[in-house]
């Protein structure tokens, strides 16, 4: 039933893409495409949630006579797919709503409208597919559609480059996944997921193969999710696309990649060795810390958000690694806790990252400016946008009572289960990774104080920022909806956790204690004596005591308020240049961390006394991953290409020589053949 509905929605989306091709340049195209997309995604979201809540024990499998001829296209929606389907379509629906308004500012609609619905359809299909071919086909189709969207403003050479790097990395990942699935399917092609699952359950895979599958899956899915060191494309490609597409890529597509990883490693591969958790933990922790450090160094608002996506993906993978470790040691309860934390963070991140990208898009359309150094003071001109952006910032900084905190709190609770682990390596490693998680969270706080403070607070740093004005209602509506969801997910986590229970049960074979049982909507991961959190109460307390304070003050104290020039310690300077810039804000943290992480160097050129020239401070930073991993490969390819290119310029005689030599060589083979 759900499968049929979802496939119908996908069909509608594909049809919408065709409409987009037809009506791309027409003014009616925008409302038509986004409207249809909105309807389709909302319906798909509803059916997915229904499937998740109902969560039948055996999900029916639908086989269409397309795809691999002798296999057909298998579609199946179990609890896992249902959850990710819900995430995908929720984000998609809000993106469509936002696009209805934001699309008005699009200068090349004919390069967006056809591909956006195709992109949505691709993401839906990946989650639904139940055979290797369908999975990879929709996976790569998704990449392809998003590539076209990245190239929407292709005249900008940066975007063209971004698109290039993006698609190459994407197909690199796809090839890795292709090898993975080929390995799982075996030489005689058992491409249906059900078949692979059987082999996995039968324990038909030896350790070496499991290792290979794990590594390849980590490469394949990780390159799409943006794990360090496969992240280089992400901060290029995500900002290049139109903002609602960036939101989709950052907020939703990375989740589809996570789905791929979970599906392959948790579901298809079957039991995995205990240290597999360590690998995932290490990579996840590294991505979390490095991602947010990168983000702290950015001045481009959208690129900053993209880097913070890397951080959040890292957090999810840390939780997944914990789940793997617990599961391989038969600790279902702890595994369920960790896995639920991962799922919750997937949902939360898709919510607040979309919200933040929408905000960035609003700023972009209001000021045509992505560089925070040229923004500022927007809180006065775009009150609604800035308030909602603030909500997003609080949520992503993992501060109570919003949703970001809940998932990180659960992750910490999972970390605290580590003493029960039998292996020393894990016991030592898990708390260390927990520390990295905490570090990432704290740095995220700094990062988003910086982002919001520089872009929205203070005094405008450019004419564009000064003349900015609020964006249209639909965009604000989309952002408001997401903000509300962030709050709800923050104060009512218990219901979410219960909804996710079937997923955890399906994947790790255990579930967290049911949360309705606990009174006052508290969440209790293990037992109340151990830990508990009540977002609702915290929220109410803060609200109550804040209003109490306000009330008391306004009753007892003077209400007099006088507006005056800023005091600024006695010597205020009118020009806004005296404000702290993003660069200067990041300086202390740069000195502490980046000097080792990015080999950041500061150079001060101080003109001699009497010289009117201003002093200059130049900071140079290197991305170690790029320097040590990608640049060498690229230069090696270039070098080989140059050497080999001589073959194009030989004389005919030399070509004959090549023929002659290969003939002689083969004859020798024959002569020496036993």
């Amino acid at each position: 039933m759900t499968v049929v509905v979802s496939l119908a929605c996908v069909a509608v989306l594909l049809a919408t893409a065709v409409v987009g091709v037809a009506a791309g340049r027409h003014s009616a195209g925008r409302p038509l495409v986004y409207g249809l997309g909105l309807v389709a995604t909302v319906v798909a979201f509803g059916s997915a949630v229904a499937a998740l809540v109902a969560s039948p024990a055996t999900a029916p499998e639908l086989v269409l006579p397309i795809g691999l001829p002798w296999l057909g296209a298998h579609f199946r929606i179990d609890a896992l797919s249902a959850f990710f389907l819900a995430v995908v379509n929720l984000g998609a629906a809000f993106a469509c709503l936002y696009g209805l308004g934001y699309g008005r500012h699009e200068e090349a609609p004919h390069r967006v409208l056809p591909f956006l619905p195709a992109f949505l359809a691709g993401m839906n299909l990946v989650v639904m597919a139940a055979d290797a071919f369908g999975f990879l086909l929709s996976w790569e189709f998704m990449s392809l559609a998003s590539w076209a969207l990245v190239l929407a403003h292709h005249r900008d050479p940066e975007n063209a480059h971004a698109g290039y790097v993006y698609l190459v990395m994407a197909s690199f990942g796809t090839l890795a996944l292709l090898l993975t699935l080929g390995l799982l399917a075996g030489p005689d092609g058992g491409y249906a997921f059900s078949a692979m699952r059987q082999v996995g359950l039968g324990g038909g895979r030896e350790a070496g193969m499991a290792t290979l599958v794990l590594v390849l899956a980590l490469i394949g899915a990780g390159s799409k999710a943006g794990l360090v060191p496969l992240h280089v494309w992400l901060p290029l490609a995500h900002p290049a696309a139109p903002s609602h597409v960036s939101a989709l890529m950052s907020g939703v597509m990375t989740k589809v990649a996570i789905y791929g990883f979970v599906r392959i490693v948790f579901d298809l591969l079957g039991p995995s060795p205990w240290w597999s958790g360590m690998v995932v933990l290490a990579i996840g922790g590294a991505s979390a810390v490095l991602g947010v450090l990168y983000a702290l160094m950015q001045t481009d608002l959208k690129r900053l958000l993209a880097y913070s996506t890397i951080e959040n993906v890292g957090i999810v993978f840390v939780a997944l690694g914990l789940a793997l470790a617990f599961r391989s040691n038969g600790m279902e309860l702890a595994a369920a806790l960790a896995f639920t934390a991962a799922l919750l963070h997937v949902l939360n991140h898709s919510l607040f990252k979309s919200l933040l990208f929408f905000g960035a898009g609003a700023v972009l359309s209001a000021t045509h400016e992505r560089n925070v150094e040229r923004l500022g003071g927007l809180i006065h001109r775009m009150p609604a946008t800035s308030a909602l952006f603030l909500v997003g910032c609080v949520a992503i900084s993992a501060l109570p009572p919003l949703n970001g905190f809940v998932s990180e709190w659960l992750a910490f609770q999972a970390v605290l289960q580590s003493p029960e682990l039998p292996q020393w390596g894990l016991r030592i490693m898990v708390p260390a990774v927990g520390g990295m998680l905490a570090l990432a969270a704290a740095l995220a706080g700094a990062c988003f104080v910086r982002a919001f403070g520089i872009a929205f607070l203070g005094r405008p740093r450019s004419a564009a920022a000064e003349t900015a004005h609020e964006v249209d209602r639909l965009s604000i509506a989309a952002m408001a909806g997401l903000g509300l969801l962030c709050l709800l997910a923050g104060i009512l986590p218990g219901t979410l956790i219960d909804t996710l229970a079937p997923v955890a049960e399906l994947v790790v074979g255990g579930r967290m204690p049911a949360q309705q049982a606990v009174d006052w909507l508290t969440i209790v991961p293990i037992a109340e004596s151990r830990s508990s959190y009540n977002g609702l109460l915290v929220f109410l307390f803060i609200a109550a005591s804040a209003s109490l304070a306000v009330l008391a003050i306004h009753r007892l104290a003077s209400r007099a308020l006088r507006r005056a020039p800023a005091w600024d310690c006695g010597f205020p300077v009118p020009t806004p240049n005296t404000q702290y810039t993003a660069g200067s804000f990041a300086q202390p943290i740069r000195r502490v961390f980046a000097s080792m992480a990015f080999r950041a160097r500061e150079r001060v050129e101080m003109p001699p006394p009497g010289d009117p020239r201003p002093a200059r401070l130049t900071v140079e930073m290197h991305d170690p991953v790029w320097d040590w991993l990608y640049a060498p490969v690229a230069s090696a390819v270039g070098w080989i290409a140059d050497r080999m290119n001589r073959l194009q310029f030989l004389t005919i005689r030399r070509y004959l020589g090549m023929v002659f030599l290969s003939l002689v060589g083969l004859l020798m083979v024959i002569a020496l053949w036993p």
Partner: protein
Amino acid sequence: MGDLTFDVAHMLAGGLVLLSFVMLYQDRLYALLNVYALHAVVLAASVAWQAFAQDAPHLYVTAAIALAFKAVVIPTSLHRIIRRLGIHREIETVGGVGPTMLAGMGLVALSLAVMLRITPEAEPLAREDLAFALSVVLLGLLMMVTRRNAVSQVVGFMSLENGLVLAAAGARGMPLVVEISVAFSILIAFIVIGIFLFRIRERFDTVDLHALDRFRGERR
């Protein structure tokens, strides 16, 4: 008759190989052409002998073709071309003559090593013939590789095809298809080469392939 047949055939085929070596050794175009003509004559003889030995009359036709075209027509016309293009100067071989000869030796050894693996029940005549034919083919190819001059490359190619004809003739009872195809291919090859040499002369004043190499597709 066995022995005598065998010996003569062997002698002629060996003579072809020898002549191929002589061609490798030559470094003047005219001399090269003359040796080539001789090569063709010997070929014709051996084919004719095969025709007699296998009493397969159609092979006489092949022999005639070989004699007519390869020993007369082609050398004379190539003479003409050379004269027209005025390139009767020395041809620089790539590696000196010595190494080339050594390489040729190696090739002959290789072809023997390959061919003598054949089970002797395929009767020796064919076996030996094949060995020689293969070496002639390889030597022709070697010649094409070690000469810088278009005409000598063509000659090398022709000697290579002589080797083919030798093999074909050695193949007892091989249907007419082969001879026709051989003649046909020689014909086409010759015509097209003629056209090309003509055109090439029309465009550049030499057929030395260096001139052609200037026109690599993708000049920097």
